[in-house]
């Protein structure tokens, strides 16, 4: 239950921290840290405009996407406390339920009948398909290392497994989760949320026709997803056995650091060319493979 609450808190401030980082690093005064949350309030108060082409899928897609994010929240553990619901293979459920939400988001983009929607839909489907193997290789590596097959099991035994080399896969795990989170949430370097040209958008162009309440739901989903991946990163770099208060502080620190990383990346990096993206994403899988080989060596299976 603790992870649930903590992730909600982190998600509350997360987008604001990204924005603050970006405005500070570009020398602007910028918005307050709570501006994204206030924006959600504004969206909630607004009415909605629906395209006359769109149908039922378009109406329910934001709800489905948010529900999928809310449900995967339940399987994320924190410290020694296991998740609200924990079972073997819950990360498979995690990945597939998020895919369910994405399925509907893609369909809702196609439902508007605009070619922009189709463009975004196909890119999103394509890139998230490519990133899927990286996540599974990483989790398989962890499962092999710890001998457990649930998020809670893996993370609570993560640092007991091979004490002296643990930093290697901590760092690799952290790096891969950052990359996956960036791609899943459509941030730089794969997608640029600030771009104003529809032709170069990915995620933004899919939700062009959403407005009001639905758009607010989509934003909430994105913020939660950030915090969820932040929690996963936290779990691979902080041993589960530490003092609980220290853990809470560290958890929030990791989330802040993650948000700052995103902010800095977006301030100082240009977006990839669209046709370079597959290579970039497959590189992440390749790094996960390397992690796997490292584990093979460490567990004396190789050599």
């Amino acid at each position, binding site marked *: 239950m603790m992870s649930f609450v903590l992730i909600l808190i982190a998600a509350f401030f997360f987008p604001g921290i990204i924005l603050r980082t970006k405005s500070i690093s570009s020398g602007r005064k910028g918005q307050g840290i709570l501006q994204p949350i206030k924006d959600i309030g504004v969206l909630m108060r*607004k*009415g*909605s*405009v*629906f*395209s*006359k082409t769109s149908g039922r*899928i378009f109406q*329910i897609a934001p*709800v489905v996407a*948010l*529900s999928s994010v809310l*449900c995967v929240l*339940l399987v994320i553990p924190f410290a020694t406390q296991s998740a609200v*619901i*924990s*079972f*073997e*293979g819950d990360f*498979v459920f995690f*990945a*597939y339920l998020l*895919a*369910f939400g994405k*399925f509907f988001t*893609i*369909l809702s983009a*196609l*439902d*508007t*009948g*605009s*070619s922009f*929607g*189709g463009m975004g*839909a*196909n890119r999103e*489907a*394509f890139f*998230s*398909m*490519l990133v*899927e*193997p990286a996540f*599974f*290789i990483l989790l*398989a590596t962890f*499962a*092999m290392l*710890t*001998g457990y*097959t649930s998020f809670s099991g893996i993370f609570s035994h993560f640092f007991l497994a091979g004490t002296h080399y643990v930093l290697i896969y901590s760092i690799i795990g952290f790096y891969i989760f950052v990359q996956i989170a960036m791609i899943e949430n459509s941030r730089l370097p794969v997608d640029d949320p600030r771009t104003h040209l529809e032709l170069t958008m990915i995620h933004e162009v899919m939700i*062009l*026709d959403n407005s009001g*309440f639905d758009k607010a*739901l989509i934003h909430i989903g994105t913020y939660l997803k950030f915090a969820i991946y932040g929690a996963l990163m936290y779990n691979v770099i902080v041993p589960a056995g530490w003092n609980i208060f220290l853990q809470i502080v560290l958890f929030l620190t990791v989330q802040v650091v993650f948000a700052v990383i995103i902010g800095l990346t977006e301030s100082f990096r240009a977006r990839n060319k669209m046709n370079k993206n*597959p290579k970039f994403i497959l590189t992440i*899988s390749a790094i996960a493979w390397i992690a796997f080989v490292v584990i093979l060596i460490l567990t004396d*299976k*190789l050599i």
Partner: protein
Amino acid sequence: MMNAILFLIILSLSFLVFFIPKSLKYYYTLFLLTSGIILTSLWCFGVLNGNNQQLNIQLYTSFFNRNFLLTIDSLSAFFIVVVNITVFIGFLYARGYLQPYYQSKNALRFSIHYFSYLWLYLSMIMVVMIRDGLSFLIVWELMALSSFLLVIFDAEDRTIMKTGISYLIQMHVGMFFILISFLIVDKATGQMSFDALRLYFASHSNFLLFILFFIGFGIKAGFILLHTWLPEAHPAAPSHVSGVMSGVMIKMGIYGILRVIMSVQNDLLLIGLIVLSISIASGVFGVMMAIVQHDLKRLLAYHSIENIGIIGIGIGLGVIGLATNNTALSLLGFSGGLLHVMNHSLFKSLLFFNAGSVYQATHTRNIEQLGGLMKKMPYTAIFFLIGSLAICGLPPFNGFISEYLIYMGMFKSLSAANLYQSIVILSSIVGLALIGGLAIFCFTKAFGIVFLGEPRSEKASKAKEVSRVMIFPQFITVAFIILIGLASVLFVKPVFNIVFQAFRLPDMTMVANSSVNNLAQISILSGIFVITIVILLVYRHFYLKTKQIDIGPTWGCGYTAGTSKQQYTATSYTYNYNHLAKPLLQTKKIMDDFRDDEIFPVKRTFESHSDDIIKKLLIDKPIDWFSSLLKKIAVMQTGQIQHYILYAFVYMLLVFLLTYFNLI
């Protein structure tokens, strides 16, 4: 005895379908089919409940000196249940689907069609019950013949007839391999039956015979390299037939492979690895080809190859588990594979039925001409959506449960596996994850282009929802899909027992219990998911009532005079992907380039299509080569009688000389 008589009565009554008035034929067939289904289901429940391990039904004591005996064990019972469900729903659907053909086709056509449908069902049932080799081959042949007759229902179309014949030939290639394998067993042991396999495997090379069987059964199942008939025959057949063929008939190949594996005693690791690698290749290749298809039914046919691949991954892992004494891997692998047999039969037949409904409403299967059907055919759209979600393996639908079992088998065995095993297992995990991702890509395309947006042609804009008789049976399938997804434990437990009995696994209570616990948790979480959606939707509904809602045009970057042709097409949706998968797909584009002197562009056409590279290399190229060879030989066919007399004379001379020198 009673059982045998009832079964024989059904068999013999089936011939009467030719003498029934045209309007009653359907009901007569339905009656026979239902009685067959009830009868066989009763047998199955007896076996599955564990009352008796095995049920024997003696049909004839002597049939060409062979014992015509039906034997039902738990594996057969499982397959019978799967066949019964899909065949029954398929036939209910057929009534509406065949309606438009009643004027154009005569009574004999319908008789043949119903008769073949009935016999396809009966032969499939018998395939899984017969253990004797020769009788098995007879019913296997009956299955091929009846499905051939079903495929060529629309035989006025020359291409369909051609496809049908090509299907028939390829089925016989498969049959030939099975025949050879049985003959080898017969030669070595003096018996020709599945039961003799164990005897044979005890003293001979397991690997070679298994490969022969695998090729024979694999052609039916449609593993990669053996799949060439599949994407041709499914689109040609009427939709209820495609549903049954793809849903259950190809699973007979899986049944055969499982039956052989049950007897294999050594070389297990090698066999497991081969099955696994072919399956991963089938899965990835199937879905990769499916993405670029524009014909809705052909797209689904390629997905059958993909799903056979997933089933095969489960089986391959199971065999590797047997080889390495890893009970968890065997149990979860085989169970995942078996459950996927059932799941696939449900969602694939559902998808084919809906593809049929779309075809009936629009008279086209080309997805580039469809679009916007969700508003015109809401039921069809929702069923297709549920089928798509299930086939992508997304929770809370049934596809997820079987894929989850396979995943669990792999993840659980990782920590204890040695180097090679871990690499194999990891590759399978990656393969399965990739298949999942690609399937999502494919079905967002299929559903999005066909059912969402604006109609892309006049055909699509005039579409109407199909009749109720076609919609109603699909509710049953959907109910099963959701039931397996949400109450998976009810279905997984029996499957565990079947695997346990069939493969004589050592004690597996611990693995089974923990899996059942996990599945219960999944059900809870899926329940929470569904409830969250419902609550949020209700909240949204009332919340939006208080706000101002406007209807406007879709955002077009300021340009609002767009036509439906400006929407994203299926080709453009897969453009990115095509770019990446170029080497495998061999997409051909046909377009004239612009000339230098062309100031104002004139009307142009653009065409692109992807060939199945394997079909091209394996079937088309050899046939081309062979027919060109035959053409060269055809020089001898001059049409002049003198030449033919000369040939006869030369032949006689040859025979005479050879005999003279004792060469023949």
